[in-house]
């Protein structure tokens, strides 16, 4: 399993039966492939779907059923559709249990920057600001560094998506919880040392007294 799928698999273990979840573009979409048996989650797409399903089979695409990336999808039994105001009422109103998304930077206070890089072309924030403010739990799922440059920083320098919203960070190196005391490393990938994770992390990590090996087993 590659790094991205290991991350996605670990994130999927956070999901509980009946959870309403929203998956960001890219790596987070892989989480859907790793949802444990016996756990049924309801995938929300922010432009107006509850109960989104897998990608449509080639040749059977339906242009009225797309995901938030414009990709043709299917829906599961029990799905429903609605407009964008209703959809974001749902999101802002705290009805999404878990939102999983990537980050450019996350910092020790749980601040998140994931929508623009200064000096680069600005794509817009889309629904990310709404999702992280509204969701009950925010999980950042990303590769630990950007070509060796830390993404988990003391203080975000990029424009923020939201303040103090991230609950948990899952990377190929480990699992980090955002707490009032700072970032706590609770799980670590097999074969790594806490020092190695700290070396790839700009923010100071508190090493959990109960540090476990990162759980991506069945």
């Amino acid at each position, binding site marked *: 399993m590659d790094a991205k799928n290991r991350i996605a698999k670990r994130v999927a273990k956070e999901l509980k039966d009946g959870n309403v979840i929203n998956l960001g*573009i890219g790596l987070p979409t892989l989480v859907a492939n790793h949802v444990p048996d016996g756990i049924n989650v309801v995938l929300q*797409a*922010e*432009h*107006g*779907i509850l109960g989104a399903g897998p990608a449509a089979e080639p040749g059977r*695409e*339906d*242009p*009225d*059923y*797309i995901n*938030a*990336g*414009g*990709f*043709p999808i299917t*829906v599961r039994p029990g799905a429903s*559709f*609605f*407009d*964008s*105001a209703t*959809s*974001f*009422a749902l*999101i*802002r109103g705290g009805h999404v249990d878990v939102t999983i998304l990537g980050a450019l930077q996350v910092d020790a206070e749980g*601040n998140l920057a994931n929508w623009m890089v200064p000096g680069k*072309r*600005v*794509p*817009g*924030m*889309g*629904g*990310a*600001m*709404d999702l992280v*403010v*509204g969701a009950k739990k925010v999980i950042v799922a990303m590769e630990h560094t950007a070509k060796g440059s830390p993404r988990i920083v003391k203080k975000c320098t990029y*424009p*923020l*998506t*939201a*303040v*103090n919203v991230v609950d948990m960070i899952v990377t190929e190196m480990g699992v980090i919880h955002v707490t009032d005391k700072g970032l706590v490393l609770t799980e670590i990938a097999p074969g790594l040392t806490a020092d190695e994770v700290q070396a790839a992390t700009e923010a100071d990590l508190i090493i959990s007294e109960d540090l476990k090996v990162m759980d991506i087993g069945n």
Partner: protein
Amino acid sequence: MSKVTTATEAVKAVRDGDTLLVGGFLTAGSPETLLEKLLTESTARGLTVVSNDTGTEHTNMIKIMKQGRVVKVHGSYIGANPVTGQMLIDDPDSVVLYPQGTLAEKIRAGGAGIAAFYTPVGVGTVVEKGKEKRTFDGKEYLLETALRGNVAFIKATIADKAGNCFMRGSTKNFGAIMARAADYVVAEAEKIVEVGELDPELVTVPGIFVDAVVPSEVKAPLKTYV
């Protein structure tokens, strides 16, 4: 009293300097027929466009923008339309970006007679610039005001001749709310039926909001854009 007309006739509603609300999320629900006629049959310029994304490289809004007819954009995710991206670089004030839910709620408020509302989204970010911040029950919120347009272009899957629209699946998105927030609303529909043929329980946009119905003849290409 049938509201059915041609797209060529309907786009005449757009005048110089107008604010145009354009439904759709990327390709889903994008009123491509109306945008094509706005491109080829209308000379309206100085337009302010309200759109979640201003479409993609492969849809019609970008062509209208290349004609220099759009002077301002209110949107949320513009990563699939490089012309909008360039506008923002050339003149930061020409493109106003909102959290997607804030944009949707501003439009809903515009149609609902709500002058303004307090949302927690955007607090502590660039979005709060110039906006009133206020605390309710210990949590901070931003004041956002309503947004309306002169004309709205929306797309329906089925419309009846009185303008009742059914928007299927994920095509409801912004069109369903924009229809309520503009002075003149044009719906293009894949299928047009007699009044009474559309199940009252399936009406996404009641006909009272819709001024003109035209046949939808142009489809957005189905691609992945993000």
